[in-house]
């Protein structure tokens, strides 16, 4: 760790590029990141209809290596990572002993004894500490490699076509949630078919020294396809439309994966014991105490994080994320509500459901998640 004052956010290998592009930069989890370049709505729409280019170098990359790497992750995480084939990736979580979510993760198995764990920027430190502690006594080492990787995502229906102009790799062979060492624009990267937008797309783990040439090559190759650089504001509305949880909003120490509707990531039947297993088994048996639902607003006033959800004017839950949806053209939100309300999704709860938007209760409709599913 370098000794920088807390007031100085960290820069990624691409921060200078964002500055040249005139981006509005924001301190996000201690990193200086592009919030938007010009219009976040235009960036959002570019990802839905063409492609967007994202700097995700703030994400934490933690390498877990050694003969016991698989065993260490089976114990540390709720998923069955020893069953993951090399070259494949898995969405999973790391929980506390009481079942509370410490972070949601994507784990790439690069080789038999080599995994790459990608954590949210805000949680990279705690996840690194927890993995280190949980790997103690095993033949596995945990290293924080965040500084060694730039991460660039290209997402959208044109992403594969753009990438194909810059690589000889057989992109059709890179399946969803697979990763593959490849050369892109002459630079060695780990090419993964993962993302957080609800679109097809790729994430490129690259050497920091290659980040700017890669960004330039992708921008140039994408120009004719309508590719635009896209910031964190667009990333948030894209993931919200796709019904994907955000740590700090839908996920936290105070919820288990079951509340978030992600109980499928908890592999209670895997052979290994794991941190949180007893508490999670109990929670699975008793049923969730609250459920995550989707809401659409009927006015233009937007339900936002922390607003109260009402059923017949009585509080029944809390909004976790909300935004005007560029694709749907109405306000959308995710909210935790009383479990019995999940049964009202078919009726939409019309006439009963509302969100307290500051001074007034705005009518809302319960809808199934996700709000948006890509065609085809």
């Amino acid at each position, binding site marked *: 760790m370098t000794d920088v004052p807390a007031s100085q956010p960290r820069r990624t290998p691409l921060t200078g590029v964002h500055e040249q592009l005139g981006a*509005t930069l924001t301190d996000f989890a201690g990193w200086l990141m592009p919030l938007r370049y010009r219009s*976040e*709505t235009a960036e959002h729409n570019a990802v839905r209809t063409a492609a967007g280019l994202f700097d995700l170098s703030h994400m934490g990359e933690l390498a877990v290596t050694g003969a016991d790497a698989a065993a260490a992750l089976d114990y540390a995480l709720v998923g069955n990572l020893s069953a993951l084939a090399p070259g494949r990736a898995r969405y999973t979580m790391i929980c506390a002993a009481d079942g509370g979510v410490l972070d949601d993760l994507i784990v790439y198995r690069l080789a038999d004894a080599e995994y790459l764990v990608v954590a949210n920027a805000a949680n990279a430190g705690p996840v690194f500490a927890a993995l280190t502690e949980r790997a103690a006594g095993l033949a596995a080492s945990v290293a924080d490699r965040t500084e060694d990787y730039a991460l660039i995502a290209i997402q959208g229906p044109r992403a594969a076509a753009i990438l194909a102009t810059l690589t000889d790799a057989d992109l059709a062979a890179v399946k969803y949630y697979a990763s593959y060492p490849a050369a892109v624009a002459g630079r060695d990267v780990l090419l993964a078919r993962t993302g957080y937008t609800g679109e097809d797309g790729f994430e490129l783990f690259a050497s920091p020294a290659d980040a700017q040439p890669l960004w330039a090559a992708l921008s140039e190759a994408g120009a004719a396809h309508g590719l635009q650089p896209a910031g964190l*504001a667009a990333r948030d509305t894209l993931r919200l439309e796709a019904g994907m949880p955000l740590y700090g909003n839908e996920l936290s120490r105070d919820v288990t994966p079951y509340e978030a509707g992600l109980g499928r990531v908890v592999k209670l039947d895997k052979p290994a014991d794991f941190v949180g297993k007893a508490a999670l088994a109990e929670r699975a048996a008793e049923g969730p105490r609250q459920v995550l639902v989707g809401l659409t607003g009927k006015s233009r*006033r937007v339900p936002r994080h922390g607003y109260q959800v009402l059923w017949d004017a009585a509080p029944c839950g809390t909004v976790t994320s909300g*935004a*005007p949806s560029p694709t749907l053209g109405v306000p959308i939100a995710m909210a935790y509500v009383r479990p019995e309300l999940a049964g009202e999704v078919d009726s939409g709860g019309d006439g009963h459901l509302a969100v307290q938007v500051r001074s007034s209760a705005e009518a809302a409709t319960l809808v199934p998640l996700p709000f948006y599913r890509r065609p085809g």
Partner: protein
Amino acid sequence: MTVPDELQYTAEHEWIAISGDAATVGITDHAQTALGDVVFVSVPAVGTKVTAGEPCGEVESTKSVSDLYSPVDGEVTEVNQEVDDDPGLVNSDPYGAGWLFKVRLADDEEEPPGLLSAAEYEALTKEA
């Protein structure tokens, strides 16, 4: 970011153009840049009495909602229907087509107190 010399400003990032007892109000270029894409503006209805420094509406953008403050005491005489139809006008032309409402000043004898000049407002936005 532009701060036209001929307008006056509030610390809450409204601009006001005063001519006799009539004034036009909007939000500044700095404000629209900070807010991002504006998706909805709620303004006081025609006939509403507004008070300087008091919230009188809301500006919803993708990421946030902000109160709109009246820069002066007065009565609303007109609201910009085009902004209701196309809130993006606040982003594309904050000092022109993106104006929000017009007021008749309660007191047109004296200069309304507390307004900032362009230079004062510009200095304020640079402090932040």
